[in-house]
């Protein structure tokens, strides 16, 4: 059985933090304001990244449907888009990216119908940018999440049947 000993750190981050700074609300507001330019630039480079994702999809569909390297690349790019979208003010990109990640996860090869699912997801991301759908978008976000979930489930059911 493994032996365990408990230790207390000699240094702790709290030793360098003092009370009396801006309130949480002020600090967050300052941070959001500071990131304003960076967030404003997101759409420009994200559209380029999306084009790379599309190219990766085209190449995978042509010659790498069972190529683990290509599939991993496709997954990683989608995963990146999912993390960045909401962080930079486009949560719908994260909704679509999350759905596509769920679909790709653990899939060793892509069948013809899988390609349709992926195509729809990438086109949905393109539409989000084309329409400039920033922010939470309320009901649309929920609806999109549900529709993509239903689409994935339907294709999975067709493939199982």
């Amino acid at each position: 059985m493994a032996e365990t000993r408990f230790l207390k750190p000699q240094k702790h981050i709290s030793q360098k933090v003092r009370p009396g700074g801006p309130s949480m609300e002020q600090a967050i507001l300052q941070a959001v304001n500071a990131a304003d330019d960076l967030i404003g630039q997101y759409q420009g480079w994200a559209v380029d990244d999306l084009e790379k994702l599309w190219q990766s999809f085209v190449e995978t569909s042509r010659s790498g449907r069972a190529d683990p390297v290509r599939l991993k690349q496709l997954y990683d790019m989608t995963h990146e888009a999912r993390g960045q979208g909401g962080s930079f003010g486009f949560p719908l990109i994260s909704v679509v990216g999350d759905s596509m990640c769920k679909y790709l996860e653990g899939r060793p090869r892509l069948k013809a119908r899988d390609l349709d699912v992926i195509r729809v997801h990438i086109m949905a991301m393109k539409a989000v940018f084309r329409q400039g759908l920033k922010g939470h978008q309320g009901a649309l976000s929920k609806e999109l999440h549900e529709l993509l979930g239903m689409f994935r489930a339907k294709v999975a059911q067709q493939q199982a049947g």
Partner: protein
Amino acid sequence: MSLETSWESVPASAGHKASMSDGYDFSALRILVVDDSFHMRELVRTFLEGFGIKEVTVSSDAEEAYDLVVNLDPDLIITDWNMAPVSGLEFVERIRKGANVPNRFVPIIMLTGYTEMKRVEEARDAGINSFLAKPISAASLYKRLVTSVQDKRQYVESTGGYFGPDRRSTKRREFRGKERRGGA
């Protein structure tokens, strides 16, 4: 060998469990951000600077970041998971086991889009202190920062190979009543 120190040495004013809205002065902190995505690490850096932190160092790969940990001795590390050739997980393990790391107890926040329980447990077993799921916001990052300041967990060194924060849940630790060690 005794690495123990009592929390009484920590200034009474620091890391108090007051409401987050009381406000903290984070300006003296030295933070290392590691992410292979330029945009994500710049966003995290900008948020941290917006919180008043003056010394934020960024790195795009874990190999370089490890040298920075050794040379800069940061107070907090925020690292992405999905990086190559050295992943964020391997980076955390190297820090926790590193003989030449000035402070193996340094708090580490894992920044990742992987939020499945299996992944969370994997990161916890590597020795992270907390998890920050992408997409991130200034508010979620601020809360994690405060959690790091307020987290007074003891660390565990096991002959089984684990070194890192106590992984037992707060509930279980509280169950030990008076025998609980390191409680804030």
